């Protein structure tokens, strides 16, 4: 389309991001070749673990420049709101599909979480004895898929990675899972595929309605439709090529789609079918696709089955990363691209969030299976994410102040990361116990504290983090979300506060039934050996992070707040000027500044409160 291709050399992030993304897949390919002879299972394991560690270090190099000495090109600048480390290469010019990658404050922490949990899950995969080589190949492919979703800025590419995860997951559950693994695997596949087909329709819908010619020169640069790396005459030529194109130029570029969706005369706001706008349809289709992954009641039923049947490391990945993909999709795609629909369906998103929060908690209370209980706790906890994302309170009645909403979205982001740590930890702790006694019946445990004191202390710490005890990571997100929802709806705030009690109930009850009590009377009591060093190496980092993020949430907020605040501010501005048609007022800036200050104050309070 006349947009000159940019060279890889001019993009410092090209190799780091590409390596982080494809190194696991490349190693998976190498493992598939008969290089390591049959029977050398340990070599396969070490290669796999080394790969995940290498990817983790690479992503750490990128995300935390402070450790490695900042300043190298391609590294992430903490505190910057915009999209960084953008990689742009043409892929399919006929459809303007690009190899477009980038990270910002929303995706960078999630990438780091993914690579980190991959290392731990890889370490937790040691006991898997059956078909070792295929396991590791699928595991590494899965990692590429997960990272790909977080770093893709092209909707087509995003979709490809989204689907790439399905098949490895299907086999990982279906081959290495528990007794009902086949049922669980196909159920997982079917639910997600149904969601992705809807997503594909929405993608096509948005693609054909989009037209990058309507964007201004500045927007073209900001959205990387025209690469900012182009200088002078090249840039001018690329701009002219776009603006003088005789027919609409459709795009899959997520940033460009967002810019089009937020423009005053958005083509997405045109009425489509049955009186609903195109963006409403797209929003709903995408939302269904994403909430299946989150998962949200009533499409959550695949999750307990998948979790219960999946082997421990896969449960960790599933709870720690896969569920976050849904929340990430809603935050990155649904709201920015379809702001009008986001506004009108805010009640739907929030309502779904609260329903799954409460339902998940009650269901967790009723479980007899330890792992199933943890699975339902995930449903409940991810409800907070939905509620936080949805509290769109920057409307006329609130004078377009976006602080409460920003608080909610920040809380949701924090909750996603914290839940990534705590749920992976909880599943691992359940797995440790299951490896020893081969059952998960809550009624048959008790007295583990006496038999395995170190394990039990670590486990209780992780479970308290899941409970949301102040000073641990689960607390910050839940409180921010609950507070922010007060402004949106008192009822929802009360419900979500009430859920905290339920959460405390099921977690404390589980702790009481499993870890406390006089002595263990269940089967295989003599197998209750202390944790191995490998298990400690997995559990301790999780516990440490749960405490660190609880005490110093700034570590995370430094990354996410600038980006989240900017997105929320943009959308609040959009509500005021585009949706409600108010001209820009002088007071608006003051209000937003005030909002930022207040938010900062709230976060500071938690930091202080946490360290108390």
């Amino acid at each position: 389309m006349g947009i000159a291709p940019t060279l890889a050399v001019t993009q410092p992030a090209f190799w780091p991001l590409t390596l982080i993304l494809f190194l696991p897949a490349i190693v998976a390919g190498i493992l598939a070749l008969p290089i390591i002879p049959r029977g050398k299972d340990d070599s396969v394991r070490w290669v796999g673990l080394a790969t995940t560690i290498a990817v983790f270090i690479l992503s750490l190099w990128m995300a935390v420049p402070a450790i490695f000495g900042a300043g190298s090109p391609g590294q992430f600048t903490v505190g910057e709101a915009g999209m960084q480390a953008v990689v742009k290469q043409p892929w399919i010019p006929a459809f303007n599909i690009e190899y477009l990658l980038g990270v910002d404050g929303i995706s960078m922490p999630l990438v780091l979480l993914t690579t980190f949990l991959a290392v731990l899950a890889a370490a937790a995969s040691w006991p898997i004895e059956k078909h070792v080589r295929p396991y590791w190949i699928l595991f590494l492919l899965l990692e590429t898929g997960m990272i790909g979703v977080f770093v893709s800025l092209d909707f087509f590419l995003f979709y490809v990675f989204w689907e790439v995860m399905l098949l490895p997951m299907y086999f990982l559950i279906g081959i290495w899972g528990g007794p009902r693994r086949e049922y669980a695997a196909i159920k997982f596949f079917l639910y997600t595929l149904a969601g992705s087909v809807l997503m594909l329709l929405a993608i096509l819908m948005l693609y054909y309605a989009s037209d990058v010619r309507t964007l201004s020169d500045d927007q073209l640069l900001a959205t990387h439709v025209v690469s900012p790396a182009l200088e002078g005459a090249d840039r001018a030529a690329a701009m002219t090529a776009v603006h003088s194109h005789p027919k609409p130029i459709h795009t899959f570029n997520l940033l460009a789609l967002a810019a089009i969706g937020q423009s005053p005369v958005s083509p997405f706001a045109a009425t489509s079918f049955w009186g609903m706008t195109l963006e409403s349809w797209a929003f709903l289709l995408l939302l269904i696709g994403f909430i299946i992954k989150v998962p949200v009641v009533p499409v959550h039923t695949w999750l307990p089955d998948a979790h219960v049947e999946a082997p421990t490391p896969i449960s960790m990945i599933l709870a720690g990363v896969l569920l976050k993909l849904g929340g990430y999709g809603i935050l990155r795609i649904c709201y920015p691209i379809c702001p009008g629909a986001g506004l009108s369906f805010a009640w739907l998103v929030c309502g779904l969030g609260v329903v799954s929060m409460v339902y998940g908690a009650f269901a967790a209370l009723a479980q007899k299976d330890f792992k199933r209980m943890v699975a339902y706790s995930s449903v409940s906890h991810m409800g907070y994410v939905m509620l936080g994302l949805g509290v769109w309170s920057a409307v006329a009645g609130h004078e377009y102040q976006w602080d409460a909403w920003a608080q909610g979205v920040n809380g949701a982001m924090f909750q996603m990361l914290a839940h990534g740590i705590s749920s992976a930890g909880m599943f691992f702790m359940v797995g440790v116990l299951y490896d020893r006694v081969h059952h998960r019946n809550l009624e048959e445990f008790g007295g583990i504290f006496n038999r395995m004191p170190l394990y039990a202390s670590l486990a209780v710490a992780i479970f308290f983090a899941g409970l949301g005890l102040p000073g641990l990571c689960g607390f910050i997100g839940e409180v921010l979300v609950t507070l922010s929802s007060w402004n949106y709806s008192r009822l929802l705030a009360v419900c979500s506060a009430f859920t905290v009690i339920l959460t405390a109930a099921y977690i404390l009850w589980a702790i009481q039934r499993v870890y406390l009590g006089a002595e263990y009377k269940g089967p295989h009591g003599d197998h209750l050996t202390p944790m191995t060093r490998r298990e400690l190496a997995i559990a301790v980092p999780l516990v440490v992070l749960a405490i660190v993020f609880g005490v110093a949430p700034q570590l995370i907020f430094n990354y996410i707040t600038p980006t989240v605040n900017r997105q929320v501010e943009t959308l609040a501005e959009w509500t005021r000027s585009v949706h409600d048609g108010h001209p820009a007022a002088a007071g608006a800036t003051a209000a937003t500044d005030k909002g930022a200050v207040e938010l900062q104050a709230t976060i500071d309070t938690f930091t202080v409160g946490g360290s108390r």
Partner: protein
Amino acid sequence: MNPDRNLGTLLDGTLHDTLVVSLPHFRPELCLAATIVLLLLCRMLPLLRLVDSGFLALGGVLFSLFFAWDDVLSLHGGPWASTIGDLLAGRQELFGGLLAFDSLTAYIRLLLTGFLVLFILFTKVSGIPDSEDGADFYTLVLGSTLGMCLMASANHLLMVFMAVEMASVPSYALAGLLKGRKASSEAALKYAVYGAGAAGVMLYGLSLLAGVLGTCHMPTMARALASLDSMWMPGGTGLALAIGGLMVAAGLAFKLSAVPFHFWCPDVFAGAAAEVGAFLSVASKAAAIALLLRVAFGLGTTGPGPDHAVEMAALGETRHFIVGIVALLAALTCTLGNLAAYGQTNMKRLLAYSTIAHAGYLMMGVAAAVALAGRDADASRSAVAAVCFYLGTYVFMNLAAFAIVALLRNSLRSEEIASYAGLIRTNPGIVVATGVVLVSLIGLPPLAGFISKFLVFSSVMEAVSLDAERPLMLVLLVVGGINTVISLFYYLRVLKVMTFDPPPADRTVDAFPLVSIPGALVTALVVPVVSLGIFWSGLYAFARLAGAFAS
């Protein structure tokens, strides 16, 4: 007037048309015909019987492929042309308007001859036909392909009928190739009877159309249709046209194995050898889709001319009729094919229903292309390109699927899905290859099948967004989406059996390893399924070239 001189001009004109205009664009077909003659000659002379008919056929087809490739390159600008305008000028009528040579002809011929090369290699590896049947088999296959090439270039209703028969009659014999087997003979008989019925209906329909419009030359028919005030004029003209159209559609639907004319397909596939199934499911389908495009665009659109816009507008009703039929058949075919595949226990039957379902997806693309023709020529071209791309990937997907079935049959002596249980333990390579093919048939990225499906759905969505036959296209989108989900089950079931289930206790033989000649063949077919899913710009450039035929 001197009658002699008149006759002379006529003869001169015909000679010129044949020798200078037509024959140079007819070289691939001529090659095929010459190869057939050679194959038959070799049968007659005792010494020449020693010549391996497979390699002889392969040689002829390679020549044919070369000329087909040459024809594609000779199109103005070739596949790398930047503008569509140059390509439109490439259309030529051959043999006094009986055939049309344009980018679609060139693309489909390239596809068919390319497929034939792979197919012959595959039959050499799989061992069916044996040396005794070889000459018969390859004669029939080449003859059928010759008919398919004509289907792709037919420009005249008589040619349509002749080409369909030319392609079908050898297929009937092919279906009965396994002479001793009852199922095979039954399949052949069933196929022949259905085929004869469908051909009769189609011929009747053709004669109705020709009777009303006064010609069999499709562009002239389109002009005649455009000059009618309305299809529903009094006097029964409209009725005759509609019935004629429906009857032609029935004939085409039979070739496409579209529901409700699909009953022959599972029986033939299950009864005939897997090799024949591969040929019918790929080549026959590609040719039938090309013919559908030819007829739909031949009757529903007119070429560039002074009154182009007026004629296109006048043909709106015709296109609406065509889109209605094709879309309805597509939705039915897709859904029924996928649902019926559930209960299958035989791999060939399952693939037969899968073929039926994929014909449905392909027809969705055709419906979108015709619907868009009156709205936006560029969009219509990209819809045709989507269909052509689909056909291109389909060659590899389905040939690989049937190749795996045939090669596993050779080692396991069974085509039942249950007999594949636990193959992953002994033959992980083959299972991975099967997995790639089946997942590509489901349409999951990053495999070729996904791109094909994406392109077709994307064209249907473009029709929705440009408001071309919107309600119908919306229905197609929804049907396509639902079908993608439900098709997951039966493809995955095969994989599940191969990976999750324990191997049967009584299995004594092993499947073939990946490092062997059959394994290499499977690999060679599966690699494109993956690579076309990631680097699809090249094939898409060719498909776009083919799409340029839609004016």
